[in-house]
């Protein structure tokens, strides 16, 4: 995501944020709506590809047609990552609050990928996931309570030895970047996730130009 200037108007409310992203998915194309608005189309293409590569590095390059990994793309937007992971042989569920984006996802589905409209703190499937990923989503949850509930809920969906992959900055403190972006500290994630039975495997930065975001990776061990 882009790094907007600090806003004088505070943070978007929960419903405002949902409406904001639905409108953004309506107004912008496949890459820009969920990519970085400060990059052009080609750079966003590279940005997506780079993030996918890093993500595959984390969740592993093995796949099985007869027993695929079950993945959750939480806040999937228009489903670029979900489709790519499906093509890699995984069974992917994608959730997002934007009906516009989910409709587009369903139109563009490439196989067993499924898409549902849901908030991150409300998704309650009947199965565990081998990996839950939230790419460039959590720092758009402006309400700290919703952010915490979302992280806790996503962690609850990970099976034993499964991965929880959450994108944010690797910072020492929370930082408000504007009315629709706030990054949380590394310790903030550790404080929420580790007591839930996870081990922190580390931070994997995007290393894409000046983007400071990356993957906080946790593995459930209990």
């Amino acid at each position, binding site marked *: 995501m882009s790094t907007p200037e600090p806003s004088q108007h505070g943070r978007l409310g929960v419903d405002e944020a949902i409406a904001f992203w639905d409108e953004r998915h309506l107004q912008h194309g496949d890459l820009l709506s969920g990519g970085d608005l400060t990059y052009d189309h080609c750079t966003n293409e590279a940005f997506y590809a780079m993030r996918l590569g890093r993500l595959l590095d984390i969740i*592993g*390059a*093995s*796949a*099985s*047609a*007869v*027993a695929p*990994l079950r993945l959750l793309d939480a806040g999937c937007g228009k489903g670029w990552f979900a489709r790519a992971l499906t093509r890699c042989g995984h069974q992917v569920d994608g959730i997002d609050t934007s009906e516009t984006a989910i409709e587009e996802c369903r139109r563009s589905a490439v196989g067993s990928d499924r898409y549902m409209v849901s908030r991150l703190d409300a998704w309650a499937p*009947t*199965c*565990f996931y*081998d990996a839950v990923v939230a790419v460039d989503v959590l720092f758009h949850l402006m309400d700290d309570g919703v952010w915490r509930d979302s992280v806790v809920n996503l962690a609850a969906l990970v*099976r*034993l*030895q*499964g*991965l929880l992959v959450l994108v944010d900055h690797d910072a020492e403190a929370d930082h408000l970047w504007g009315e629709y972006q706030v990054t949380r500290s590394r310790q903030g994630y550790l404080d929420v996730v580790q007591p839930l*039975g996870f*081990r922190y*495997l580390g931070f994997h930065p995007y290393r894409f130009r000046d983007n400071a975001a990356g993957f906080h990776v946790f*593995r*459930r*061990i*209990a």
Partner: protein
Amino acid sequence: MMVREIAARYLGEGGTIRVDADPEVLAALGRAGPVADLGDGVGTSQGDVVLIAVDPLADNLTDRLLGVSTQGVTVLLHLPVAVGDLPVGRLAQAAGMARLAFVEIAPIEPGWSLRTVIVCRPSPRPVPVRPFLGDDSAGDDHEVDLDSQGLRIGWEWGLGSARARAVEELGRTAVRRVGQLERELVEVRGELEKELVEARVELQQELVEARRDLKTAHEVVQRAESRAIAEAQRRAALQQSPSFLVGRAVLTVRRHPIRGLRQLTGVIDRGTRRPPDPPAPA
């Protein structure tokens, strides 16, 4: 995941991959590490990987697992079945009796050959389990709290197996419903076919009757035509007869005497004229 990747993952320092499997499995090991035949008489040692081909339906399954269950080694069971077809009861029972603890399960690439490797370790207690299709970044096993892992496994197994049963029951219900609908469809189709046959017979009977009526009508028409033709011939013959011609001339005399007499004379002349003599023979 490939056989050589799994073997290399569990091969300890200075260890050897000891194999009791067919040449195809042996070839799949590639450069995973030093390989030796399990039956070469040399015992296993710490850090070894024991890779054996296992028929999960074989009678000697438990004995086979007992034979490789020695402390310090990692046992890889190579099974010629897909994950979805594993006979879980037989495997769990045999592995439990051989005191083998579950570590990991992996479908083997390429997927079309439908093979599975189960990784286990000789241990009377649970050991850290490894991620499904995971890589080598799972972290240090020593950090795993086995009691917490056991609790978690219990929950996942309890909830997951209950849900799996419910899902299977839903599937069976759906199959039963489909079966019921198919039976109803067969019945309806049978009734329709019966009605169709009856209608066809009825139609054929009506067709036979219609053909018979048509034939009768045709014969009537033919007889009428014959009668009409005969009648026309009789009328033509009558109109050419001398008495008819005389009568018609007499009627003409009454209306037009001169023309009638001329006709009457002509008729009488034609009636009395002798036909010419036939030519004399030469």
